[in-house]
């Protein structure tokens, strides 16, 4: 009995030491390679960090799923949006000619772009699925210019760690992505849908579509992009408005 207890004690001790050592090494590596999400603290932090770190490592070079044209949903569902402000209605009445996208932060050349300016950049069309965290989904063709084209135009500085993006209601509707997602050609500043202009209920005139994450990450009515080396400086420091409302910053699952 005594002997077994001692052996168990030694095994247990070795296992615990290996566990603590492993966790310490993993934590340092995760910090070094940016694998800890901005909302990686608190009781849900360990699960959130594991999910983000694993999926980030798995998907660095994987393209989003694309679908054949025949799979485009006949009746896509536009989720409920808050009623448009007077300012939005005025811009809409003018055919969004006065809609502007401001690009600033850690960039060499801050920009102010109209939709016409954006359309002079290389355009791309992709047929991808919008999957809502609630469970429903639809497939559509999305047309626009990759975010990476705008970032290249603006000359993103090397210290940049995240791109923050704001809707026309910037205080309660903003989000951010890491540079892997920012440079991904599927991350699309979307202006068109299914061959036409992007309708307002689907986020028109400008939506940042990110098909490798759930729908709530693809914010509608984009007016402002900020490159930053410190995401903690924005809002409550959780990386987006979503965690402030209880939802995870990373929406890959």
């Amino acid at each position, binding site marked *: 009995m005594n002997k077994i207890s001692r052996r168990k004690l030694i095994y247990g001790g070795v296992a615990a030491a290996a566990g603590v050592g492993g966790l310490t090494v993993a934590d340092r590596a995760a910090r070094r390679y940016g694998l800890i999400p901005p909302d990686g603290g608190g009781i849900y932090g360990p699960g959130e960090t594991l999910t983000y770190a694993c999926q980030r490592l798995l998907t660095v070079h994987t393209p989003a799923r694309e679908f054949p044209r025949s799979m485009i949903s006949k009746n896509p569902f536009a989720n409920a949006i808050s009623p448009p402000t007077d300012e939005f209605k005025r811009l809409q009445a003018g055919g969004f000619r006065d809609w502007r996208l401001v690009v600033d932060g850690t960039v060499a050349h801050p920009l102010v772009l109209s939709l016409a300016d954006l359309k002079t950049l290389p355009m791309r069309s992709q047929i991808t699925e919008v999957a809502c965290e609630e469970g429903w989904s639809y497939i559509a063709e999305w047309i626009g210019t990759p975010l990476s084209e705008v970032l290249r135009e603006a000359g993103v500085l090397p210290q940049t760690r995240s791109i923050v993006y704001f809707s026309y209601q910037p205080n309660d509707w903003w989000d951010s992505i890491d540079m892997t997602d920012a440079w991904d050609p599927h991350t699309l500043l979307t202006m068109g849908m299914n061959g036409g202009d992007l309708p307002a209920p689907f986020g028109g005139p400008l939506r940042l579509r990110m098909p490798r994450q*759930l729908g709530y990450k693809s914010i509608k009515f984009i007016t402002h992009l900020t490159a930053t080396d410190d995401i903690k400086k924005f809002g409550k420091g959780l990386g987006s408005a979503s965690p402030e409302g209880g939802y995870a910053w990373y929406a890959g699952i």
Partner: protein
Amino acid sequence: MRATHWLTFIAFIALLVTGGELVISHPRFYWGEVGNVNTKPLFAIPIPSSRDTVPTGYNYLMPDQNGWSRYLHFEAAWVAMLTGLVYGIYGLVSGHFRKNLLPERRDWTWRAYADRMAQYLRRKPPGSTEESSYNVLQRTAYVVVIFVLFPLIIWTGLAMSPSFTSAFPWTAALLGGRQSARTIHFIDSGLLLLFLLVHVTMVAVSGFRSRMRAMITGYSRDSSEGR
């Protein structure tokens, strides 16, 4: 071994509660890749939803708790998966699966299943061999839960992730699409709940206190107690 049982229990309860909560934000299930309120569902659960965009026929909304439910669901999924990994490796290496869980060769007949089932239905007490060994029905149930239902629920869960499926598109395609994965995930969770209910009932019938003591301390004193 007993630690993995209780860790799985805690994680499973958390998954069940949060999973149930997540369902009410869209209590409709579809087959194929896509599905939304403009699509005909395969089936819908007749409960109120937490979203006013879902036509449920009820004119009130359930509270929306998806934020923390999602956080906890995924954290508990990690606990369950890592625990399952430890349990799986231990079960293979120690021969636990082969010796204790795989139905014995002589029981690979319908007859063996029918006989044991009849014994349950007639409420005859188990024979002496079952004090230290599982019978064919128990073994089959455990094998199905451990090697079919749990792996399937992990697979279907991951097949709903737009990020995971960008790396492994076949995980969704093989199931018929993302919505099929969600539907199978839901049905699978129902089967696991059914197992939990039967499992707890059986424990209760065979003496809740002594079984719990055995599963917590590791010592079975059934024979000396002469129940």
